[in-house]
C-alpha cells in the first residue's frame, strides 16, 4: 500500500532514460533515490507524477493505478512534488504562490474568493513554519534562491500531500539552510508524511534517509538502509563508472 | 468521375505544390526548433521576396531567378538581425507568446509597406517562358511550375546536406535538441540560433522567387500562405523537419486533388480540417515531433 512502480520505461529518441524500473518505496519513511548523473532519477519522478507519459510499466499508489494519469489527478491523489530547478510562480506574491496550491472543487468552490480567511491562515502557517512569513507580500521573483526553494516547498505542503517527492532539495543551497531543510524533512516525516528524495548531497542523504534506492542506467541496482548502501560494491561501481 | 488525365495532372500539380510547401514549412520548423517561435511573418517575407523579384524584373528586366542572388543573402542577414536584435530582447518566460505578436507585427508592417509602395494592385511577372508548358503522359505542366519545384528541391537538398553533413549543421541540431548541453560542448548557441533564423528566412527568399514565377501577387496574399504552412507544421509535428516535409507533400496533394470536386476555395479548407483533426487526435503531430507534446 505505497508508492510503487513496475517495469517503468521511457526512451527519448534513441536514448533509454528508464529501463524497466520496478521500485517500491517505504510508506511513512524518508526514502532517497540516488545514482550518477543521467541515471534516470528525474525522468522517474516525471513519469510517476504524470509530467511524462511512460512508454511502458505501471505506477500505483495506495493500491490505485496512476499510470498515465494527468499530473493534477496524481497531485490530488496525495503526491506532491518539487522540481529540480525550483519552480515558483514568479509574478505572484509568496502568499499567492502558496494559496494556489489549493485547487477548488466545483463551480461554487471556484468562484469563492481566493483570499478566504481559513486558507490565508493556513498558508501563512506554512510560510511561518518555513521561516519566510515576512516575505508573504513579495513577488516570488524578488526572492533569493534559498527563499524560493522554501517557498516551493511551502506550496507543495499546502496541498497536504501524504507523499512528497523532492527533486534535489539541497541543490544550490547554503550549508545553514541545508541543515534546516534536513531537520524540516525529518520533522515533517515524523508527522506522518512519506518522502522520496532525489539528491546528490550524500551527507544529507545518509543523515536523513531510512531507505535508499540506487539507480543506474534507468533501473534500480541496489536498495537498503544507509549503512548497507554505504558499503555496497555495486553502488560504488555505478558511481565510479566501473 | 474525373478522367485519368485530369487526375494525373492533379497529382503532378500536387507534388509540385507540395515541394514549395515543404521548403517554406522547413523554414517555419527551424524557427520553432531553435527558439519555440511561431514565425507569423514567414509568409510575409515570402511575398516580399516575390515582390522584389517582380520589381527588379519590371525595373531592370532582371529574371527573378537572378534576383535571388540578391534576395537570399539579404534575407539571410535580415533573419540573423531579427533573431539577434529583436527576439532576444523578449523575456524567456513569455517568449513563445510574445514572439508570435512581434512577428505578427512585422507581418503587418511588411504588408502595409508593400501596399504603400506598390498599391494593392495584383502583379504578375511577364516572362518569355511564362506560358511554355511540357507534356508529361498527357498532362500539361507549366515550365515555371517545374522550375519552382526544382528550386524547392535543390534548396531542401542543400538544407539537408547542411544539417546532416556540416559542422554548422551539427551545432544547429545540437542547439535545437538541447541548448544548454550544446553550450557545454562549446557551441556558441546564440550565434548558431541567429544563423538558423537566417537560413529560415533564406528559404522564404527562395520560395518567394519560385512564387513570383507563376503566381499573381498582392500585399495581403501572405495570409493565404501562413494558414496552410502553420497547419503543415502542426500536422508534421512541431519542430520536425522531415515531418513537415511529409505533411507538406500529403496536404499539397490533398489540396490539389480536392480542387477537382470542390473548387479552389473549399479545397483550401483541407489544411484547417487536418489541423483540427491532428490537435484533437494526436496533438504531438503525425510524423515525429518530440517537442510538440509540450507546445
Amino acid at each position: 500500500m505505497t508508492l510503487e512502480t513496475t517495469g517503468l520505461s521511457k526512451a527519448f529518441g534513441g536514448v533509454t532514460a528508464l529501463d524497466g524500473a520496478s521500485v517500491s518505496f517505504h510508506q511513512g519513511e524518508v526514502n532517497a533515490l540516488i545514482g550518477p548523473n543521467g541515471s534516470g532519477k528525474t525522468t522517474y519522478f516525471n513519469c510517476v507524477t504524470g509530467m511524462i507519459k511512460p512508454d511502458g510499466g505501471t505506477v500505483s499508489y495506495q493500491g490505485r493505478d496512476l499510470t498515465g494519469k494527468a499530473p493534477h489527478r496524481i497531485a490530488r491523489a496525495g503526491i506532491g512534488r518539487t522540481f529540480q530547478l525550483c519552480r515558483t510562480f514568479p509574478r505572484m506574491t509568496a502568499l499567492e504562490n502558496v494559496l494556489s496550491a489549493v485547487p477548488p472543487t466545483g463551480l461554487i468552490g471556484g468562484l469563492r474568493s481566493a483570499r478566504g480567511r481559513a486558507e490565508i491562515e493556513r498558508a501563512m502557517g506554512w510560510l511561518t513554519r518555513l521561516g519566510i512569513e515576512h516575505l508573504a507580500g513579495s513577488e516570488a521573483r524578488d526572492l533569493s534562491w534559498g527563499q524560493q526553494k522554501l517557498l516551493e516547498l511551502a506550496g507543495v505542503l499546502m496541498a497536504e500531500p501524504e507523499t512528497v517527492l523532492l527533486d534535489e532539495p539541497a541543490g544550490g543551497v547554503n550549508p545553514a539552510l541545508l541543515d534546516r531543510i534536513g531537520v524540516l524533512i525529518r520533522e515533517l516525516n515524523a508527522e506522518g508524511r512519506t518522502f522520496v528524495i532525489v539528491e546528490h548531497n550524500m551527507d544529507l542523504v545518509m543523515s536523513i534517509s531510512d531507505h535508499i534506492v540506487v539507480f543506474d542506467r534507468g533501473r534500480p541496482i541496489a536498495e537498503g538502509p544507509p549503512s548497507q548502501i554505504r558499503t555496497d560494491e555495486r553502488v560504488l561501481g555505478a558511481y565510479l563508472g566501473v | 468521375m474525373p478522367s485519368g488525365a485530369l487526375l494525373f495532372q492533379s497529382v503532378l500539380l500536387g507534388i509540385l505544390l507540395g515541394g514549395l510547401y515543404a521548403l517554406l514549412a522547413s523554414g517555419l520548423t527551424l524557427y520553432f526548433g531553435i527558439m519555440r517561435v511561431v514565425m507569423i511573418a514567414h509568409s510575409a517575407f515570402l511575398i516580399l521576396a516575390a515582390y522584389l523579384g517582380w520589381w527588379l524584373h519590371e525595373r531592370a528586366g532582371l529574371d527573378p531567378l537572378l534576383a535571388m542572388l540578391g534576395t537570399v543573402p539579404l534575407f539571410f542577414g535580415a533573419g540573423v538581425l531579427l533573431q539577434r536584435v529583436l527576439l532576444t530582447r523578449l523575456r524567456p518566460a513569455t517568449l513563445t507568446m510574445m514572439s508570435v505578436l512581434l512577428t505578427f507585427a512585422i507581418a503587418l508592417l511588411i504588408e502595409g509597406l508593400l501596399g504603400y509602395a506598390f498599391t494593392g494592385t495584383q502583379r504578375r511577372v511577364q516572362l518569355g517562358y511564362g506560358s511554355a508548358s511540357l507534356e508529361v503522359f498527357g498532362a500539361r505542366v507549366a515550365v515555371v511550375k517545374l522550375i519552382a519545384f526544382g528550386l524547392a528541391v535543390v534548396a531542401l537538398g542543400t538544407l539537408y546536406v547542411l544539417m546532416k553533413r556540416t559542422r554548422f549543421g551539427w551545432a544547429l541540431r545540437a542547439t535545437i535538441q538541447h541548448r544548454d548541453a550544446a553550450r557545454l560542448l562549446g557551441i556558441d548557441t546564440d550565434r548558431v540560433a541567429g544563423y538558423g533564423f537566417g537560413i529560415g528566412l533564406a528559404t522564404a527568399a527562395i520560395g518567394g522567387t519560385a512564387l513570383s514565377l507563376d503566381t499573381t501577387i498582392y500585399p495581403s496574399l501572405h495570409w493565404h500562405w501562413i494558414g496552410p504552412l502553420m497547419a503543415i507544421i502542426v500536422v508534421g509535428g512541431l519542430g520536425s523537419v522531415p515531418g513537415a516535409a511529409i505533411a507538406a507533400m500529403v496536404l499539397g496533394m490533398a489540396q490539389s486533388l480536392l480542387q477537382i470536386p470542390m473548387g479552389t476555395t473549399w479545397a483550401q479548407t483541407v489544411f484547417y480540417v487536418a489541423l483540427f483533426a491532428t490537435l484533437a487526435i494526436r496533438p504531438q503531430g503525425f510524423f515525429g515531433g518530440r517537442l510538440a507534446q509540450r507546445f
Partner: protein
Amino acid sequence: MPSGSKVLKLAAVALLAVAVLAFPSIAPNPYILSAGVLVVYYAVLATSWNFVGGFTGYISLGHGALAGLGAYSTGILVAKAGLPPFLALAAAGAFVGLLAVPIGLAALRVRGASFVIVSISLVLILLLVFQSWSSVTGGSRGLVVPRPFQLTRPEHHRIFYFLFAGLLALAVLAWWLIDRSRFGLGLKSIREDEDKAEALGTATYAYKLIVFVVSAVFTALAGGLYALWFGDLDPVFQFSILTGSYLVLMALLGGVRQLFGPVVGALIVGIALEFFKVEYGDTPLHLVATGLLLALVVLFMPDGVLPAIADLIKRFGRSDRTSIREVSAAELREQRLQNAGGTK
C-alpha cells in the same frame, strides 16, 4: 480603516462610470456618438479577450472571428429565421459558447503555440467559409440585418451606446469576480508556469477550456450587438485578422493584468483608429501604424501603460517605501486587518 489605495480605486471606477454614461449627452454630433459606440464595442471585445489573454497568458489572434461568428449568427437568426433581435443575440451567444468547446478542446490540449496557430486559422477558415457559402451568409455581397428599433439615427446610436456600456459593465464584473476567485488564482498560475500549476493539482486543461468559453460568449455577444447596431455584415471585415490584432494591441497596451487595462487600451487605440481613418482615409498605412505600435508595446511595454504609470507614481510619490520587505509587511498587515474586519 479602509486603505487609501482602495478608496482611490473606487473613486476612479466611479469617475469612469460617470464619464462613460455622460458621453452621449456631451457628444456634439451623431458621428462622434457613433465613434463612441465603436470604442465601447472595442472595449467589450478587448475585455472579453482578456479573459484568456490576461489570466492564462494564452494569446489569441482569432477573437475577431468569434465576434464575427456572433455577429453572423445573430444576423442570420434575425434576417433569415425571423427571430426577435435580442432572443437571436442570446441564442448566438449560446451557440458560439457551444462551438468554443470543441475549438478549445483541440486548441488548449497542449501549450500556447498550438493555441495561437488555431486562433489564426479560425479567422482564415471562417473567412473562406463565409465568403463561399453565400446562400446562407450572403457571401461577399454582405448580409443586411434589420434594425431592432424604429428610431432616428442619433437615437439608434444612443440606445446601442448604452447597450454596449451595459455589456461592458457585465464583462468587467465577470473579470473582476474571476480575478479575485480561487479559479482565477489557478488560471494565473497557469500563466506563470503551467507544469508547476498542474503538479500542484490544478486541472489546467479544464480551467483553460472554461475561461475560453466564457471569453467566447462575451465576444460573441459583443459581435451580435454590433450586427444589430451596424446592420450590415461583410465577411472581409467580420473575419479580418486585423480585428483580432486590434484587440491584442488594446489589451496589451492598457495592461492585461489590470481590470480596466483593456478598456483604457480600447480608448487609446479606438480613438487613434478613428482619427487615422478621418485623417488618412483607408490606406495601407494603418497596417504599418498598427504593426509598429504592436511591436513597440511588445518590446518595450509588455505590461502595458497602466502599470507603467503606476510605477512612475510610485517612484515619485512614495519615497518612504524603501524596501520590498517593508512593503510586503505593510501589505500583509493591511490584508490581515481587512480579513479580520470583513464579514464573517
